[in-house]
């Protein structure tokens, strides 16, 4: 089950995140919903990301893969090029660069879709987007719910509601 608490400002929400995590809740079980990006101080609710690393990885894979394809194609059908080398690293360098960048772009967007959870099937329920409040959602079990509701209310939550799992 999930607990939802609504806060009117960023500071209250940040305090609530710290209180809840201090009470032993895993930060991965905490989500904050807002209509515009909410900027917490570093360390409050960091989301580790491998986006840069995977973008580089994707760039290297697509770039070198396409370069390998280019070299393979020229060997696959070796034309007589009249003195020019069959494969020219310099002349194909432009394509290597472009496809490396394409790999980086697609890798970034792919990781974005994955890390943001937009592509996942098993997603936790989400509140409707509201402009006026910041909604915090905590996953918990039935036993711990009472205590969390108290903690959240103490941290300044306007309202708290319980949401049952969809399954």
């Amino acid at each position, binding site marked *: 089950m999930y607990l939802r608490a609504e806060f009117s400002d960023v500071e209250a929400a940040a305090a609530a995140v710290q209180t809840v995590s201090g009470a032993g809740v895993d930060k991965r079980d905490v*989500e*904050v*919903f*807002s*209509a*515009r*990006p*909410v900027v*917490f101080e570093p360390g409050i*609710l960091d*989301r580790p*990301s491998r*986006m*840069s690393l995977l*973008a580089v990885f994707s760039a290297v894979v697509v770039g070198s893969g396409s370069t390998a*394809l*280019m070299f393979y*194609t*020229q060997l*696959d*059908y070796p034309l007589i090029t009249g003195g*020019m080398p069959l494969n*020219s690293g310099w*002349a*194909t360098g*432009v*394509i290597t*660069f*472009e*496809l490396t*960048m*394409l790999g*980086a*772009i*697609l890798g*970034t*967007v792919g*990781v*974005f*879709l994955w*890390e*943001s*959870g*937009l592509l996942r099937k098993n*997603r936790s329920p*989400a*509140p*409707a*987007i*509201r*402009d*006026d409040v910041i909604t915090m959602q905590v996953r918990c079990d039935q036993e711990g719910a009472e205590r969390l509701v108290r903690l959240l209310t103490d941290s300044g939550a306007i309202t708290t509601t319980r949401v049952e799992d969809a399954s």
Partner: protein
Amino acid sequence: MTTLATTLNGPHRRVREDVLHPLEGLSFWYLASAAFFSALVVWALFAWGCQIFLGIGVAGIRRPVFWGLYIVNFVFWIGISHAGTLISAILRLTDAGWRKPVTRAAEAITVFALMIGGMFPLIHLGRVWLFYWLIPYPNDRLLWPNFRSPLVWDMTAIFTYITGSVLYLYLPLIPDLAEMASRSQGWKSRVYRLLSIGWTGSDRQWHSLERAMKLMAAMILAVAVSVHSVVSYDFSMSIAPMWHSTIFAPYFVAGAIFSGIAALILVMFALRKFLNLGRYLRPVHFHNLSKLLLLMCLVWLYFSASEHLTVWYGNEHIEMAVFNARVHGEYAPYFWLMVACNFLIPFILLGIRRLRTLGTIAVSSVAVLIGMWLERFLIVIPTLSYSALPAAWGPYEASWVELSITAGTFAAMALFYMIFAKIFPIIAIWEYDEDVSAS
């Protein structure tokens, strides 16, 4: 649409009203101008159809000018496309706060200019129905494309750029699409919901979005620079006089940014006027962009002077034929008009502070667009017209087909933009929100 707005206060509420209001209803003038632009586009398509069915000869290209207005327009539109992504990426990376009402308008220009510019190499092909022979895939012709050809470089560069800039436009649009979905009813809501791919506004999503946009901005910057360099390689890799030049790549990139800023300023004027966005596209935006335009005007002069000075001083007879045709021969009127449009007009109007008003900024932008189009014309045509052997010199005159297609692409740009601005909020609401909250 008013249900939610009542719960919002001050600027947040007002930006929604102002930005979302133009999305409602279709006025008579909107429909009339859309019909006008559509007619021009249909006429251009008819002209292209004539060219496909009757033969490429209905265009005015002839020996030795094998590349004509199509390639001029190609370079021009790819240049315009630098408006968006490049400017928005630079402003995003430097975290310039004033960018926020401008970025989406700029990114949309990029996507549409690329769609239009990317069509020209196809329109220009002698056998356009076989264009897919440039794509590397295992085929029963047993032949792969020639990756040495700058045209294949071009194809991959533009493919990368258009993929990147569509995504770069789309990613920051997702939160707004989710908001649009919650604000509209019926099928519209369902379409916006579908396009927002399940955006809920969780901190994970915001985190990923901001991170992705930072990375994308850096990458799109590199791609944009490389794309116009590759476009310039189409010319500079050849041994034609005044094309085979090492300065071409940076020269083209600078020119592209120059014309891109001018296009962005003009589009912003249009948005300000027709969508009543004066509160967001404020004079400060126009003044900031006009300073960028002035800077690029000087950069353009520097490159242009370097290019012409070296050719003139070198006095190499094959190149001098082209130089003379440009500077005091057949193409001299275009050349000096270009100098006036690209340098004199913007430099005087924007360089003298008392003269720099919204009106003169608009005039300078129009001048720069004309000047940059002429510059592309002067790069493509005289070189071919005055090739290495004097006996093979020949003139060029565009036919109605080329002129119709050229006109049609400008209409297509206007049409695409009108439709885009009718469907999507042209100012990124969430970015603007963030800005207001921060201040």
